[in-house]
C-alpha cells in the first residue's frame, strides 16, 4: 500500500520559494513543493517549464538564487551531488552517465563512494535485482545493453545507496511500453517500502497510473498541485500549456499513389565503433500518406536518416529511389533538387547553425531554395524567406532575424520544419519531429506534416513517440537493431505489437520475455 499522504510529522523534503535566475530569464519563480515519505510525487510541465532546473537545485547541481530546502523539517544547504547523496537523494538522469566499455558491475562500483570491491558490488547487485525484479547481468559490457537495461543500472546504482528520495527524469522516454510497465511495478514497490519518488514527466497517462499528487509547472511557476486521478488528461494538459490543446485533424487520406520513396535491400555498415548497421531495409512512401518509423533510440534511426538524406551513400544507385529516380549514389544536394526535403533529429548543429541568423540558416537547403544565384547569396531573398517561415509557422523570435540559438527548442524546430515544408517538397523525411518540443509547437508541427501529406506529398516520420505516430501515420513500421519490420497500415498495429517489435521478439516467440 502507499504511505498515507496526510501522515503527521514533517514532509521528507520541502522546497520553499525556490527561485533561479539566468540573466533575464527566471527559470524558477518562487516554487513551493513538498514530498511525503513513501509518496510518488509527479512533477509535470512542458519542456522549458523549469522542471530540470528545479531538480538540479534539489540534487545540488546548481545553486538557487533564493529560497530554502528543508529535509525532514530542518533547513539544509545542498552544495553538491555528493552532499545530496549523503542526505539520501538518488537521481536517475534522462541521459545516462555510463562508461560503454565497462561492465555493469564495474560501472556501478566506479560511481559508489566509499570502499566497495567488485565482489561485494556483484553480490549486492544480485540481491537488488532479485528483490525489485531488475534483471541485470553483472558481467555484460554496457555498450551491448538496451536503453532499458542501462536505465536499470542507474536505478540499481541509486538503490545501493539506500536512498530516501529517488528522482527520475523522464524515465520512460527510452523505454518500450512493456519496459515502462515493468518500471512502474518497481516504483510501486519502492514506494510501499517507504522510499519517496519524485517523478518528472510530461506524459499524463503515466502520471495518472503512478501518482496521487502532481505539481504542475508552467513558465517557472507552480500553477497547481492536483490529484492526477481526479482530473481528466485534457484538464491537466490545459494546466500545463495554459490553453486548450486541440487534436490533430487527419482527414482520411486520398488514395495515395505514386511512390515518392522506394528503398530496396538497403545495407549500411555502422559509422562508428558502437554504431548500428542497417540490414536489408525495404521501405516505400507514396504521395499523400504519412509513413511512421517507430523504434527505441539507437536502433538505426540516425543511420537510416543519413542513408535517406544522402549524407551517407549506400549501395548502388537503386538502393534509394526518389520520385522515380535512382539516387543511391547521389548526395543530399541532388536529392533536394529532385524535390526531397530532410529534417534531422538535432536542431542545433545539424539542422541549423547555432550562431548563424535565421536568414543565413535558410542557405542550408540552398540547393532547392531560391536564396542564391550563380554562387552569390541573395541576401534579401534569404531575409524574406526567413520572415515568411517565421510568420507562417508561428515561430516566436526575440528580434527580427535572431541567431538560431536564441530561439527556444520548440520555436527553432518550427523554423527548421517550416524551412523545408514551405518549399512544398514531394518527399519529406523527418527524424524525431517533436523531440523536446512543447505541446503547442508539437501540435503545430504534426498538423503541418499531416497537411503536407494531404496536399500530395509523401511524409516519412521517424519517431520514438508512439502516441505521435499513432496520431499522424497512415502506415507504420518498427526499426529494431538495424532491421525494419514490415510496413503495415496503422489500423493493423496495437501498442503491444509495436512494443514486441521494438524488443525484437515478435517473430521469435510471440510472447513477452522477461527482459
Amino acid at each position, binding site marked *: 500500500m502507499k504511505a498515507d499522504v496526510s501522515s503527521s510529522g514533517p514532509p521528507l523534503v520541502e522546497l520553499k520559494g525556490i527561485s533561479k535566475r539566468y540573466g533575464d530569464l527566471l527559470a524558477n519563480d518562487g516554487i513551493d513543493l513538498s514530498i511525503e515519505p513513501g509518496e510518488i510525487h509527479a512533477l509535470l510541465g512542458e519542456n522549458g517549464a523549469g522542471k530540470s532546473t528545479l531538480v538540479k537545485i534539489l540534487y545540488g547541481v546548481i545553486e538557487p538564487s533564493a529560497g530554502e530546502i528543508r529535509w525532514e523539517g530542518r533547513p539544509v544547504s545542498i552544495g553538491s551531488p555528493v552532499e545530496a547523496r549523503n542526505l539520501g537523494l538518488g537521481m536517475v538522469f534522462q541521459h545516462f552517465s555510463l562508461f560503454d566499455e565497462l561492465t555493469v558491475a564495474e560501472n556501478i562500483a566506479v560511481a559508489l563512494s566509499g570502499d566497495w570491491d567488485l565482489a561485494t558490488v556483484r553480490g549486492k547487485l544480485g540481491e537488488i535485482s532479485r528483490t525489485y525484479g531488475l534483471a541485470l547481468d553483472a558481467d555484460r559490457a554496457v555498450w551491448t545493453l538496451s536503453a532499458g537495461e542501462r536505465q536499470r543500472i542507474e536505478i540499481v546504482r541509486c538503490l545501493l545507496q539506500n536512498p530516501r528520495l529517488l528522482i527520475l527524469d523522464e524515465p520512460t522516454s527510452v523505454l518500450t511500453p512493456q519496459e515502462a510497465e515493468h518500471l512502474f511495478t518497481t516504483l510501486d514497490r519502492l514506494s510501499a517500502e517507504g522510499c519517496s519518488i519524485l517523478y518528472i514527466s510530461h506524459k499524463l497517462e503515466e502520471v495518472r497510473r503512478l501518482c496521487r499528487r502532481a505539481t504542475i509547472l508552467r513558465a517557472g511557476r507552480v500553477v497547481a498541485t492536483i490529484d492526477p486521478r481526479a482530473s481528466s488528461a485534457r484538464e491537466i494538459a490545459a494546466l500545463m500549456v495554459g490553453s486548450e490543446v486541440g487534436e490533430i485533424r487527419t482527414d482520411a487520406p486520398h488514395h495515395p499513389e505514386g511512390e515518392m520513396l522506394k528503398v530496396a535491400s538497403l545495407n549500411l555498415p555502422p559509422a562508428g565503433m558502437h554504431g548500428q548497421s542497417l540490414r536489408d531495409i525495404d521501405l516505400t512512401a507514396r504521395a499523400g500518406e504519412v509513413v511512421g518509423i517507430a523504434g527505441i533510440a539507437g536502433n538505426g534511426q540516425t543511420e537510416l536518416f543519413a542513408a535517406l538524406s544522402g*549524407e551517407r551513400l549506400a549501395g548502388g544507385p537503386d538502393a534509394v529511389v526518389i520520385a522515380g529516380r535512382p539516387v543511391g549514389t547521389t548526395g543530399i544536394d541532388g536529392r533536394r533538387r529532385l524535390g526531397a526535403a530532410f529534417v534531422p533529429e538535432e536542431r542545433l*548543429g545539424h*539542422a*541549423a*547553425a547555432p550562431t548563424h541568423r535565421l536568414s543565413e540558416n535558410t542557405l542550408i537547403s540552398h*540547393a532547392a531554395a531560391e536564396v542564391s544565384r550563380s554562387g552569390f547569396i541573395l541576401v534579401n531573398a534569404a531575409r524574406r524567406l526567413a520572415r515568411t517561415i517565421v510568420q507562417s509557422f508561428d515561430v516566436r523570435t526575440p528580434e527580427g532575424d535572431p541567431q538560431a540559438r536564441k530561439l527556444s527548442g520548440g520555436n527553432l524546430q518550427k523554423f527548421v520544419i517550416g524551412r523545408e515544408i514551405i518549399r512544398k517538397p514531394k518527399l519529406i523525411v523527418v527524424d524525431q519531429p517533436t523531440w523536446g518540443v512543447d505541446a503547442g509547437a508539437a501540435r503545430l508541427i504534426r498538423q503541418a506534416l499531416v497537411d503536407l501529406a494531404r496536399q500530395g506529398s509523401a511524409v516519412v516520420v521517424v519517431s520514438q513517440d508512439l502516441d505521435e505516430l499513432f496520431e499522424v501515420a497512415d502506415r507504420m513500421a518498427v526499426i529494431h537493431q538495424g532491421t525494419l519490420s514490415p510496413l503495415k497500415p496503422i489500423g493493423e498495429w496495437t501498442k503491444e505489437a509495436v512494443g514486441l517489435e521494438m524488443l525484437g521478439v515478435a517473430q521469435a516467440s510471440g510472447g513477452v520475455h522477461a527482459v
Partner: protein
Amino acid sequence: MRFELTPRPNVSPVMRALAPVAAFITAFLIAGLVIWLMGRSPAAAFDVYVLQPLSDPWSLQELVVKATPLALIAIGLSYCFRANLWNIGAEGQYVIGAVLGSWLALKTHGTEAGLWVLPLMLLLGIIGGALWGLIPAFLKTRFGVNEILTSLMLVYVAQLVLDYLVRGPWRDPKGFNFPQSVTFDPSATLHPIFEGGRVHFGALFALIAVLATAVILGRTLFGYRLKLTGDAPRAARFAGFSSKSTTMAVFAISGGLAGLAGITEVSGQIGQLQPSISPGYGFTAITVAFLGRLNPIGILIAALVVALTFIGGESAQILLKLPLDLTQAFQGILLLCVLAGDALVSYRIRFVTRGGGK
C-alpha cells in the same frame, strides 16, 4: 574559489566596436610598464614606436611595404581559419612561392625576354604556394593527418630547399661565394607604383585581395560554406558541402596568396633570392588574421598596425637600444589583449566561491 565565464545575455554593439580600441590602450600600457621596468622612458618609446614612423613620409611608405605581405598572407589564412582549419605553414608556402616564381626570373636572366616574364612569375608564385599548401590538405583529407603539424613542419622543409638552392645550383657565380642568386633583370622586377617611391605593385594586389575576399566571404555561397564548416560542421555536411573539397580549396587559396606574397617580396623588394627572404611574415600573419578578427577590412588595418610595430621596433633598437625581441613580445601582448577583449564583450567573469558545479 574559481572563475567562471558566463555568457552575457545581450552583447552591446558599441562595446563590440570599442573592444579593439580598449585592447590597444591596454597593450600599450602593459608594454609601457615593461619598458619602464627595463629602465627606459615609456614616453620616449611611444614617440619612437608610434609617433615618428607616422609623421615621416619615408617610413609611411615603409609601413605599406611591410604591411603588404602581412595582409596578403593573413587574408589567405582567414579562409582557412574561418573553416576551422589550421594552416600554420604560410611561411613555407611563402618561401616555395618565391622559389618557383624566381625560377623563371633566373631562367630568363640575361635574355631579351619581354613583358610576359613578370606576370608568369607571379602566377608561378601562386601555384607554388598553393601546391605546398595542398600537401597538408591532402594528407588530412586522405589519411586524417593533423594539418597543424604537417603544415608547420613543411615550413622547415621549404626553408631548407631555399637554402640549398641559393648555396648550390642557383648561386650567383660572380657573387664572391655569397649564398645568393643573381639580381633579377628589370623585366622580372615588380616596379614601384610611383617613380622613385618604395611602394610597389604588390600593395595593389593586397588591396585587391582584401576587396575580393570581402565580397567572397560576405556575399557568396562559397564564403557561407566556409563559415558553416567552421561553425557547425554537421550542418555543413547537411547543406551538401563536402568537407574534403572545402579543406583542399582553403589550403589552395591561402597557400596561393602566401606564395604571391613571397614572389612579390622577392621581385619587388629584395630583387634576388637569398637564404632569408622573410622576417617571419608567415607566422606574424597568423597574429594579423586574428587581430583583424578574420574580417578582410580588419585584417588590412591589423596588417598596418603590426607593420608599424616592425618599423618602430627597428628604430627603437637603434635609438633606444631596446631589443628587437620586445617587438615580438608587444605583438603577442596585443593579440592577447584583443582576444581577451573579445571574450569579455561576450562573457562576464564570475567568481565562484562555493563548491558546486557539475
